[in-house]
């Protein structure tokens, strides 16, 4: 394998409006001085989408039970920052790129608002709608929801998605309280802070109580198992909600584990049928399977586009949308198929016009490892500050295969294996487990396929599955002559490594090793420690 040298590409189109993005930050501030000026057309477009977001939030708060819900759960305070999250992900974007981000993020906001509405209605402390509660099946945040593809009249509800996952995207400090609560009760501080925070929400009595039953998954690590143990204890013994453990095999590339994996899927479905009284519906399953295949087809095409000189759906646009669409949605929400179509149209339009998202593309990077959740918009920063194009990231490199989507007796049997495969190959665990081929070898194959000339390697310092491979990554990169930048972080806790601490690692490498100057020097050092 040979790493090609990438020649800098300059955008022939001038970026309209603000170009010194660091000037918009208020020192020590929680929020920015003002919103970005993007030229008349794009500013008005962004303003119209902001109005839409305000309408979604206003509609949610118009219901008295939702107000009660808002004032009951501490993590709900993070939803004050919804518009700012969108501003962070759209920084520097114009034209099609701005529209793609809004298509994705505005839909995710609507979907999360619906999820919160469901929770407020079913929760015993707020809406207390018992009949409605009985049609909810609880799942983990980081869990493939394929086992729910055959239940059209049940709701697949993750309490952890809005309480922890989305909260940290909105506010970098969102989970500090819950991490502290978990550790006050003796949980170790060296496990992944994501499951630890989820356990903290449960310990702090801050998880809504509802649901007919729950399905937990052995997601990825020791922390995940620890968190699930704490949560299921309370669910089963205190709240009377039965929990099924779905232990998907970790050696997911091996043929000899697939029968077992399919059997576990059968058992999970039987558990849901038994506890809800609802029966598996094959018509609905294959309808969802078609949508899963369509999403896979689109993602494959976007990734192919990113292998060319004119990548279109990349960075934050690819990462956040893939996580939502692949695992949480998994073919169950038709609106996401419509969004896929719109995104495809925008991407093709921009590709035909050979559009670029920044004034210059200086490096093409593969982003690997588990990204910092409190700084997901780091990918936007990489592009705007240093001209580094994050072509794809590890969490977006998931299943590329089609599943059986027509109803035949053979396909009904195959469906269990497909659901097992989707569950085994869910985001993060498909790379952090399964042998070093999927974690190490594949990375360097992607470097070649995408004509990348750089690797940004996130090192989540409490992720033991990845940290164990540190030396092997370095050896391979050195051997092949690929510049590799390590970026340490602690996923949910910016008190350990701050956002500036994350940026400094790239800044030092770019200045000392690459001997380069930033594209936008105002972004190099930002006083955003207090920011949402």
């Amino acid at each position, binding site marked *: 394998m040979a790493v090609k040298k990438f020649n800098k590409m300059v955008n022939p189109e001038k970026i309209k409006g603000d170009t010194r993005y660091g000037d918009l930050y208020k020192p020590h501030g*929680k*929020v*920015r*001085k*003002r*919103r970005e*000026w993007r030229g008349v057309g794009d*500013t008005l477009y962004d*303003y119209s989408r*902001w*109005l839409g977001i*305000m309408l979604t939030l206003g509609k949610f708060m118009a219901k008295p039970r939702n107000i009660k819900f808002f*004032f*009951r*759960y*501490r993590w709900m*305070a993070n939803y*004050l*920052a919804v*518009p*700012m999250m969108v501003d962070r992900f759209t920084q520097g974007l114009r034209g099609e790129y701005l529209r793609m981000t809004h298509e994705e993020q505005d839909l995710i906001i609507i979907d999360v608002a619906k999820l919160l509405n469901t929770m407020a209605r079913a929760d015993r402390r707020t809406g207390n709608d018992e009949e409605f509660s009985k049609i909810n099946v609880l799942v983990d945040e980081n869990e493939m929801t394929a086992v729910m593809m055959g239940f059209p009249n049940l709701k697949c509800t993750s309490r952890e998605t809005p309480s922890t996952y989305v909260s940290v995207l909105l506010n970098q400090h969102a989970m500090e309280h819950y991490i502290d*609560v978990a550790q006050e*009760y*003796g949980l170790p501080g060296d496990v992944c802070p994501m499951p630890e925070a989820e356990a903290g929400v449960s*310990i*702090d*009595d*801050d998880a809504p109580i509802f649901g007919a039953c729950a399905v937990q998954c052995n997601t990825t690590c020791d922390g995940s198992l620890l968190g699930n143990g*704490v949560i299921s*204890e309370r669910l089963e013994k205190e709240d009377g909600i039965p929990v099924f453990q779905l232990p998907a095999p970790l050696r997911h590339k091996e043929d000899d584990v697939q029968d077992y994996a399919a059997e576990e899927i059968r058992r999970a479905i039987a558990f849901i049928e038994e506890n809800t009284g609802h029966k598996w519906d094959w018509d609905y399953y294959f309808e969802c399977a078609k949508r899963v295949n369509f999403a896979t087809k689109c993602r494959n095409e976007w990734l192919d586009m990113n292998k060319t000189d004119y990548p279109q759906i990349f960075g934050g646009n690819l990462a956040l949308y893939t996580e939502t669409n692949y695992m949480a949605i998994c073919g169950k929400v038709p609106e996401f198929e419509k969004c896929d179509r719109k995104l495809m149209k925008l991407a093709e339009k921009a590709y035909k016009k050979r559009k670029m998202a920044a004034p210059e593309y200086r490096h093409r990077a593969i982003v690997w490892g588990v990204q910092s959740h409190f700084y997901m918009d780091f990918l936007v920063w990489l592009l705007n500050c240093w001209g580094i194009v994050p072509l794809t990231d590890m969490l977006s490199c998931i299943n590329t295969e089609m599943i059986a989507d027509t109803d035949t007796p053979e396909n009904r049997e195959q469906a269990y294996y497909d659901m097992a495969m989707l569950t085994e190959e869910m985001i993060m665990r498909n790379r952090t487990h399964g042998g070093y081929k999927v974690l190490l070898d594949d990375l360097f194959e992607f470097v070649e396929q995408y004509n990348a000339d750089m690797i940004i390697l996130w090192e989540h310092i409490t992720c033991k599955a990845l940290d164990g491979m540190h030396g092997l990554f370095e050896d391979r990169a050195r051997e092949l002559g690929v510049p590799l930048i390590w970026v340490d972080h602690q996923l949910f806790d910016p008190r350990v490594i701050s956002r500036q601490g994350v940026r400094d690692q790239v800044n030092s490498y770019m200045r000392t090793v690459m001997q380069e100057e930033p594209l936008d020097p105002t972004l190099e050092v930002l006083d955003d420690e207090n920011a*949402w």
Partner: protein
Amino acid sequence: MKKKLLKALLYVLTGGLAFFVVTFTVYFFNLDMKLTSAIEPFLLKWYDRIPRNQHL
């Protein structure tokens, strides 16, 4: 009738313009986020006062 229609149209246009001026000012100067960031500390104090059954 025509006069009434014109008057109604004028009201709609004035109302629309006023709505645009106010909301665009809020949008551009980030006043929505400035307001909510000022509310957050009071909210957190409120959540601290809620009695909880905190345990493992």
